[in-house]
């Protein structure tokens, strides 16, 4: 049975606060997601600090497709489909490196990103036997690597969409931009200024990919998942709890028209009082006190927010403070995903501070993270137990806090659901339904 013949209204009923388990286990629905969501939405594909120099490349993914993230001579970033146009072989099988061209190991077609030989990045420049076997009758310009039509570098993060009609990335973000800025901007409030701590963790989890963005978009309800770390105390100040007291009221703020959401602070116009952080390390503590003071000066009376955890629809989440990371949830079949985690620090943070942060983030997140390892268990066995024929008849319950969200002053189109609510999960699945219905961008972006 294809998804077209199913009623999406029946699968996702925001009005009754239910979502069918089929979304998390069904192959047909999954296949349509690859087309309707991953084929259109803006997806995070990497970070510019992974490819600092001209012709550096880094292998990434968009949905199930392998893509090459590469820089040209001028520093502009391109995203190319990693599949030879002749027989499909991966033209690049190294995770990272520096190359002006990619030569297919199967029949030898080669593609260049060097503007001295290629008019377009990924243009086909070398074809063995071009004269003898093709009799010069092959339109090389038409057979370059497929190039992703929309690519944006936003404060170092690289985003791409396969849909050339996709709206500008900043429109897609809306006022969610502020919360992303809170993770990407320097701790002292200056624009950008963060980079990835060498490399990315990539690992497979036997769960549907949506469990993760749903978790980070605003699940304040899953404290029992992390009870063990709260008891042990893995925080960076004498081990209390999981993190330092971040000194703000953490609320569930969502963007119903865009599908994004955050666990964070409402917009405010002056800096919250200083709270000591990272007191286990005098150097890291002093660094954070010092950037706090600069932040007070730099931001003045400007609008600002704080991000605990957040999701940008569909499959990207991030943490803004402790830890400070970016995550991507690549679909890998209806009941499997490949999760990626990048860890962020201020570019100019002193080496000792960087090391303290690296160490803390790694013990918090990732497959070896004391906190995150328990999420994997919950997501994977929730998926497993939803496969059964009887189980599938019964939807998940998303009724918490229905009808209690209120508009947020100072944020366009945002609602505040309070401290603990499933408002943001409902927002996420409502957006999911809109994409799956195949709505046009003008309708998706509320322009009709």
């Amino acid at each position, binding site marked *: 049975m294809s998804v077209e013949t199913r009623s999406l209204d029946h699968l996702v009923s925001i009005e009754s606060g239910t979502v069918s388990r089929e979304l998390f286990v069904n192959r047909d629905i999954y296949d349509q997601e690859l087309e309707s969501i991953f084929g259109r939405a803006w997806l995070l594909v990497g970070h510019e600090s992974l490819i600092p120099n001209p012709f550096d490349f880094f292998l990434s993914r968009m949905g199930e497709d392998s893509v090459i993230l590469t820089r040209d001579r001028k520093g502009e970033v391109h995203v190319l489909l990693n599949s030879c146009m002749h027989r499909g072989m991966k033209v690049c*099988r*190294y*995770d*990272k*490196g520096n190359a002006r061209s990619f030569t297919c190991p199967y029949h030898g077609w080669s593609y260049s990103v060097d503007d001295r030989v290629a008019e377009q990045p990924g243009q086909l420049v070398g074809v063995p036997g071009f004269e003898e076997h093709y009799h010069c009758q092959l339109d090389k310009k038409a057979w370059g690597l497929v190039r992703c039509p929309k690519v944006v570098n936003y404060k170092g993060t690289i985003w791409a969409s396969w849909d050339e009609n996709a709206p500008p990335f900043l429109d897609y973000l809306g006022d969610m931009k502020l919360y992303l800025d809170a993770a990407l901007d320097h701790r002292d409030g200056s624009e950008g200024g963060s980079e*990835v*701590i*060498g*490399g*990315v*963790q*990539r*690992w*497979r*989890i*036997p*769960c549907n990919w949506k469990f993760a963005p749903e978790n980070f978009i605003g699940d304040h309800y899953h404290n*029992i*998942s992390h*009870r*063990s*770390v709260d*008891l*042990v*105390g*893995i925080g960076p100040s004498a*081990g209390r709890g999981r993190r330092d007291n971040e000194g703000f009221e953490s609320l569930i703020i969502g963007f119903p028209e865009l599908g994004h959401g955050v666990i964070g602070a409402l917009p405010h116009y002056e800096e919250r009082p200083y709270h000591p952080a990272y007191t286990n390390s005098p150097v890291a503590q002093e660094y954070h006190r010092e950037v706090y003071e600069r932040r007070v000066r730099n931001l003045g009376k400007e609008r600002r927010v704080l991000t605990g955890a957040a999701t940008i629809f569909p499959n990207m989440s991030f943490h803004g403070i402790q830890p400070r990371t970016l995550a991507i949830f690549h679909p890998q079949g209806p009941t499997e995903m*490949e999760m990626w985690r*990048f*860890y962020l620090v201020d570019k100019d943070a002193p080496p000792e501070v960087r*090391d303290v942060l*690296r*160490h803390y983030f*790694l*013990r918090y997140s*990732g*497959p*070896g993270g*004391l906190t*995150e*390892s*328990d999420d*994997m*268990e*919950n997501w*994977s*066995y929730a998926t497993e137990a939803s496969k059964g024929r009887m189980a599938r008849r019964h939807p998940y319950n998303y009724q918490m806090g229905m009808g209690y969200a209120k508009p947020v002053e100072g944020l366009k189109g945002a609602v505040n659901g309070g401290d603990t609510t499933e408002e943001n999960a409902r927002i996420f699945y409502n957006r999911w339904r809109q994409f799956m219905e195949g709505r046009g961008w003008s309708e998706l972006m509320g322009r009709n």
Partner: protein
Amino acid sequence: MQAETTAQLDELLLHREIEDFLHTEADLLDQRRFKEWLELCADDIRYWMPLVWNVPFAKPEQEFSVERQDCAWIDEDKVTLTQRVKQLATGLHWAEEPRSRVSHLVTNVRLVEVRPDARAPKEVVVRSRFLVYRNRLQDEVDIYVGKRQDTLRREADGWKICRREIYIDQNVLLAKNLTTFF
């Protein structure tokens, strides 16, 4: 001749002693005697598992993420190893609750450095291979295989692990989490 035989015997006995240490350590882990296992870790232990990249044959130096600089799978000291052991004991660490069944096979043990010598060794560098099998709940199986390089130091109450490098033979990690010790 006599001196040479004695030296060979010293090496043989040391090899046997170190191998026995590694097997005893593995057995403590497999029996979930984690507190006793922690006592085998030196107070200044560094326990590190780098990420592994697909790189050209000619560039082996780029294969692993750089220690103390880059991201890693695991990068621990005694404090965080102790936190992990405490977490297991809470009974609320869902990734390992109920308990996984884990077996460590440690093999290909080879002493690559002995300081100062095999007669009165104070520190050894030992390479080995591991195959760690984890079985969870009904049918979940993870197999972690790789190479280890340990630095062991002889302290008053026996050998201690002061450094463990763990090179897992996986690029994308095929297990959902890393909640066992290697």
